[in-house]
């Protein structure tokens, strides 16, 4: 071999530096994903003696899922939950950040008030809301009645309200968290742009729409990604408040996945659901980044 082949030494340090990350990603992300894909091709039911050992059944678990009425309900519930909670809590977070990004009396206290729900664990939040939502004398119902609400009060047991009630809890908990990111984003905005706009006579609304929004796009991208993922991943409040009911009115994908795995002991179907969940999350995250990259080009940043 000629010496020239070895003239460029293979750099060791970069590989060494990323080695821990690669190791952990492989151990905690790639390996479980591969395992889920593999298991989803088998029939394995731990509470049925003859199906306890896995048998290869190809895509049957997926076929079963897509012809299952409960699965359809669960997908619809999840879509409503995600599309209902994510945009509203982000918008609320943004509005709160705008309101609290100025000099007002008791600023720290206000920020704390809106942020504190996020410090609480979801189980505590849900337990607090269980008392709020109590029919007749719960705080939430009392407040609504004061405002003139005369509808049903059994929020967590009513088929039309159960999903809504867990959505309200999630929005209440998350809006303050997103507010924090927007506050940080707002405080890092360049002031000169706004001064120039003000000089040019741009109204508050024009500044918000043409400057604040576009400048905060990266923040929004980040928040929408974590909000979307957390909307799929949060089930604690469902366990506490509704247990997915009444009937299946508030069963979301991850809650059902838990039921299938631990109540039905259906390992294969649970693995198939896991794969579906991963695909959805991956698709969203990738799309989100691609779209935002395209916008970067358009804005010329």
């Amino acid at each position, binding site marked *: 071999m000629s010496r020239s082949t070895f003239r460029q030494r293979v750099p060791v340090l970069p590989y060494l530096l990323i080695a821990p990350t690669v190791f952990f990603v492989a151990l905690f992300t790639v390996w479980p994903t591969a395992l889920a894909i593999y298991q989803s091709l088998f029939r394995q039911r731990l509470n049925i003696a003859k*199906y306890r050992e896995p048998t290869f059944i190809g895509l049957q678990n997926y076929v079963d899922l897509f012809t299952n009425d409960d699965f359809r309900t669960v997908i619809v519930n999840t879509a409503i939950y995600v599309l209902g909670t994510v945009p509203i809590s982000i918008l609320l977070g943004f509005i709160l950040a705008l309101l609290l990004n100025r000099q007002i009396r008791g600023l720290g206290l206000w920020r704390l008030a809106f942020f504190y729900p996020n410090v609480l664990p979801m189980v505590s939040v849900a337990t607090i809301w269980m008392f709020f939502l109590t029919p007749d004398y719960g705080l939430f119902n009392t407040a609504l009645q004061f405002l003139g609400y005369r509808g049903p009060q059994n929020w967590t047991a009513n088929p039309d309200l159960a999903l809504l009630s867990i959505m309200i809890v999630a929005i209440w908990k998350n809006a303050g968290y997103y507010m924090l990111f927007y506050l940080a984003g707002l405080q890092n905005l360049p002031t000169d742009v706004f001064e120039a706009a003000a000089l040019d006579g741009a109204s508050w609304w024009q500044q918000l729409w043409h400057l604040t929004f576009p400048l905060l796009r990266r923040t929004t991208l980040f928040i929408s990604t974590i909000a979307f993922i957390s909307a799929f991943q949060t089930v604690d409040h469902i366990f506490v408040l*509704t247990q997915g009911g009444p*009937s299946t009115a508030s069963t979301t994908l991850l809650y059902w996945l838990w039921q299938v795995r631990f109540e039905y*002991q259906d390992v294969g179907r649970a693995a198939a659901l896991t794969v579906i969940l991963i695909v959805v999350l991956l698709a969203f995250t990738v799309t989100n980044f691609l779209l935002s990259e395209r916008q970067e080009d358009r804005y010329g940043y």
Partner: protein
Amino acid sequence: MRRLAGVLVLVLAVVVAACAPQATPTPEPTQPPAPTQPPAPTQPPEPTPTPTPEPVTIQVYYPVAVDAPIAQILQGYADKFKEKYPHITVEPVFSGGYGDVKTTIQTTVEGGGTPPALAVMLAVDLYDLVNADLIVPLDEYLNAMPDKDAYLNDFIPAFLENSYYDGQIWSIPFQRSVVTLYYNKDLFAEAGLEPPDSWESWAEAASKLTLREGDDVVRWGLLYPSGWPYWLFQPLAIGNGRNIVGDDPTEVYFNDPRVIEAVQFYIDLSKEYKAMPEGVQAVWGQAPSDFASGAAAMIMHSSGSLAGILKQANFEVGVMAVPGKNPGTFATVPGGGNLYILKGAPKEQRDAAWEFIKFLTQPELVADFSINTGYIATRQAAYETAAMQEHFQQVPQAAEIRDFLQYAGKEFAVQNLGEVRNIFHKYLQAAYNGEMTPEEAMQKAQEEAEKALEPFK
């Protein structure tokens, strides 16, 4: 740079070591040779009639499902046990709710770990636990008892019903409860009402005791929680002559006309008699305090809530079985947890666990446990103890609950329980909420349940 790389390798090594599989959650006792025993290999073994047993440590996973200091009580029993059996150490491990205990053990075993030797799990989990090969039958231990028949026959039959499967016995009743109808005796006396003895007299009493001010309800005649509905529903079906479950663990009777009629009666209590809130009532947690504060004249609940209710209520509390459809008939259903020995635990731990089960089910301890927790004493002999007799003087309701256990039917235990129960819940709640008629709902429930039970036929 070389130093940096060295440090990195070191860090990596530490990280990898930290991720290495942990020791099993149940550490095996290291079994040090007892200092009193001479070293074995050099000397010929001397025949000793009672060899000092090797020390052994077992864990008991238990849930807390009632408002009682279960943790302290169990630790107290473990300490007492240690005095009698110095070589066995029992460590009670609080593991959440019933579901959590089962899930923890399952995941431990699936992950290749060693489960605890003993666990308190729902009596109705029997089939799932046997099918998943998680537990051992207790016949071998029972057969070794000189007084096996006397021991088993002393348990209240309703509580032992969910211990048998496949001709073997798999669990011993431990913390058991029963569906109870609580009624406010003062309100009944005020209204000149007798305790109900049929669906009709029950519904009429509930209707009469419902108090309205304009459109607002000040007091409900009855609160009937249905957020997790099968358990409290069962007495209605049994009281109409058809339990939802048969003798065989693959038989369900959701679409039997008598069961459908029972669903209709639940709906009538709100729609016709206006005696309770409409639809599904997610009020399990609040019902006892609503009853104790006078916001409800009657509630359906667990016997386990008796102590809490008596503590809060400033009126005379009545307890009774659930009225059946025909006058003079009553029904109820048992619930709660049994003691199971887990297969994955080493033999010496399982043997020790059985000793602890025997210890826990002595009449004196059964009585003590019942008095301190509100669970029902599972053995007849416990009721003969002085402590229990004294308790009955103070809390006559406890004796009444024991007496109406005679009306108990079989709790809903079937193969593939999680799935079948979910199916039943789904359609029962749909009927309660008026999304389907009782006939339609129970028909669908039967079809889906039969599909879920197919692999067992």
